[in-house]
């Protein structure tokens, strides 16, 4: 029997085709495959009678394919984390959700502080642990001190808790404890599929709505065997790149604000809104809500509308470049960005960083090329020159992506395309299937995986947002930094709390 089942992005297969391996074989094949260049997209558990089945979904970028395998466990297994650090949060998640104990896990703690779905989490005697109550990594010594921040922050942002271990201004360790935004999305997605399904998936991370909705739609379409038209896919691709630009622009402006470079901060604050308004031009909502539906998109992009957005970009893009060049030209800004918050290539690889942050650390990863959904159109790859993992690199990668996404959108808007925007979708959910989709959101790849139960129902819905892979990267970026550099390190990643907490 094969060790892995190969699945293309956005397709489904019978659940019976997924191998169930012996623990030792599961373990060695996952570790070897990752060491040979694949990466973990998702690792999750599902109850199976008295036992649990653990699924590993890996991405093989060379073959452009997902590798899926599984094993059964009665409740304890040998942790993968010592060999594959990128698995650490997934294993904590499985322990929390189903009480499955990864033996030998070096840092087994709560992730979202909810009641366990089956049994109880290994670190608690009570059913529901109190939010934020974990054994933080601490440092002892006369000059050592601890800084605790959150859950409520000073700005208008989501809640989360940060615990710094410092000597003077220097951070020796940062531990990030989240879960405040947990609203149980995965659980609510289980059961009967309804009009709420895709609209809820869309809100997994509100600033990545297009990406999340596209991933969910791809799953529903795979199960229904519907293929959205080329035109629909193009409209989705345009919206996805608009989402990327808006977020990158906003974050570059916020980075400028954090180093007190106010001109770019204020210009970008306004310009980000222009891109949100372009998205609203497509569908009425600035975050692209309700645009993506199973089978295609809800709104057409007529030639006149395309023309209007093209003119709009013509006007705004020079203003954006002006604002960014001003910042990247300014020595006081560069001095703050350079050599700050480094996550080097090797570490990034070990931690399994994805997307923009991974690229900024020099990893040539991008699911728009590694695992394209259908043959969707996509922008040019950016160059990874000088991508050595600092705030500067993350800022510059964003600038480069802004440029390639613009080229792409302009090209897409210029070519007129005929056809339907919404293919017939019948809402078929066959029993006992697995379907997986991966989309490159502006932060990085996000993965939706579903296992269907009886006809018409989802038995397990697993969302892995890019943030889930990357939060540890931020914690590591702070090691050896001045605590005052936290805001720019944080902004350079700008990870999602709700995407992590679900």
């Amino acid at each position: 029997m094969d060790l892995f089942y190969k699945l293309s992005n956005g397709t489904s297969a019978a659940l019976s085709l997924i191998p169930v391996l012996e623990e030792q074989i599961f373990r060695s094949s996952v570790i070897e495959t990752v060491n040979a260049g694949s990466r973990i997209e998702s690792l999750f558990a599902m109850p199976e009678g008295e036992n649990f089945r653990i699924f590993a979904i890996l991405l093989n970028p060379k073959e452009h394919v997902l590798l899926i395998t599984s094993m059964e466990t009665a409740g304890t297994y040998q942790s993968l984390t010592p060999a594959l650090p990128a698995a650490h949060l997934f294993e904590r998640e499985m322990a929390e959700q189903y009480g499955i104990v990864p033996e030998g896990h070096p840092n087994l703690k709560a992730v979202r502080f909810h009641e366990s779905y089956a049994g109880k989490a290994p670190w608690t005697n009570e059913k529901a642990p109190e939010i934020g109550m974990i054994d933080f990594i601490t440092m002892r010594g006369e000059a050592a001190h601890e800084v605790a921040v959150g859950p409520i922050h000073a700005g208008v942002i989501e809640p989360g808790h940060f615990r710094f271990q410092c000597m003077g201004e220097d951070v020796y360790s940062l531990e990030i404890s989240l879960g405040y935004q947990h609203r149980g999305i995965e659980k609510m997605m289980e059961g009967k599929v309804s009009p709420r399904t895709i609209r809820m998936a869309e809100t997994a991370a509100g600033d990545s709505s297009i990406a999340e909705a596209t991933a969910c739609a791809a799953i529903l379409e795979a199960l229904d065997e519907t293929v959205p038209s080329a035109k629909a896919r193009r409209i989705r691709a345009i919206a996805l790149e608009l989402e990327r630009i808006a977020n990158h622009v906003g974050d570059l402006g916020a980075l400028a604000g954090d180093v007190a470079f106010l001109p770019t901060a204020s210009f970008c604050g306004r310009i980000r809104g222009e891109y949100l308004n372009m998205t609203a031009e497509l569908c009425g909502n600035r975050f692209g809500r309700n645009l993506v539906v199973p089978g295609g998109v809800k709104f057409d992009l007529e030639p006149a509308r395309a023309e209007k957005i093209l003119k709009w970009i013509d006007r705004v893009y020079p203003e954006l470049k002006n604002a960014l060049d001003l910042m990247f030209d300014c020595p006081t800004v560069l001095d703050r960005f350079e050599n700050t918050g480094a996550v080097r290539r090797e570490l990034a690889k070990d931690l399994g960083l994805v997307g923009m942050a991974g690229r900024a650390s020099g990893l040539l990863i991008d699911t728009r090329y590694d695992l394209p959904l259908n043959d969707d159109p996509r922008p040019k790859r950016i160059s990874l020159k000088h991508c050595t993992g600092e705030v500067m690199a993350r800022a510059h990668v964003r600038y480069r992506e802004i440029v390639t996404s613009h080229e792409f959108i302009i090209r897409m808007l210029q070519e007129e395309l005929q056809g339907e925007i919404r293919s017939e979708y019948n809402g078929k959910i066959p029993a006992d299937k697995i379907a997986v989709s991966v989309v490159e959101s502006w932060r990085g790849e996000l993965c939706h995986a579903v296992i269907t139960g009886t006809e018409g129902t989802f038995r397990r819905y697993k969302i892995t947002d890019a943030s889930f892979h990357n939060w540890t990267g931020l914690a590591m970026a702070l090691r050896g930094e001045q605590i005052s550099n936290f805001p720019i390190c944080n902004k350079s990643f700008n990870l999602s709390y709700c995407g992590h907490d679900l």
Partner: protein
Amino acid sequence: MFKALKARLFQGYRTGKFPVQPPTLPDRFNGRPVLDASKCADCGACKAACPVDAVVAVGKDLAIDTGKCIFCGDCAAVCKQQAITFSPEYRLANMTRANLIAHSGEIYEPERPTDREFLRFCSKSLKIRQISAGGCAACELDFNVLGTLAWDMGRFGIQVVASPRHADCILVTGPVSKNMLLALKKGYEAAPHPVWVIACGTCAISGGIYQDSPEAMGGIEEILKPDLYVPGCPPHPTTLLEGMLRLMNRK
């Protein structure tokens, strides 16, 4: 220095004209629904299509609760009788929950403020502490933009403060996750009273898309009484700003 000045001249003055002039909204923007019960065939198609159970009644009592609605427009799309349409009415905010429900044949007028104490304290200056409690973060993002130069809510004396100690008002987003319940209560208590409350977004009003969450309350009403309800998922910045200005009796 010169480069910055040059850029400043190039970028120009960009603060929007609202509220002196009406806002420019996209043509596909869905505002307050307009209902015509006389056309309704009582088929229930809209109710079945609604992802959030916002169509509270069909037939002669046809009504949509904008405190639940995420403005997806699906109810209007499936209605063969065209009993449901969406107007561009962006003034969706209200001070009482009942006024969020759109009825058939209504002549909608947004509520005027009546809270004298609030007006005495806050009509010229409103200091806000935002607390997010389990949403998707889009509400926060579109509240944040009111601080950018495109909207510049500081012109009206509306300002975000870093601590609840300095706040007149707590603006809550999200359905109130169980994990934020304590922090929200503490944040509210920490503000010098009297303190007013804004429920921003469908989640905060009714739980919205998360109304059946086992891990969250169904909005903030279970904990705090809002003084302003701002519908939308997320509310358009104009909707939120207009609501706050109206609450302050500024327009």
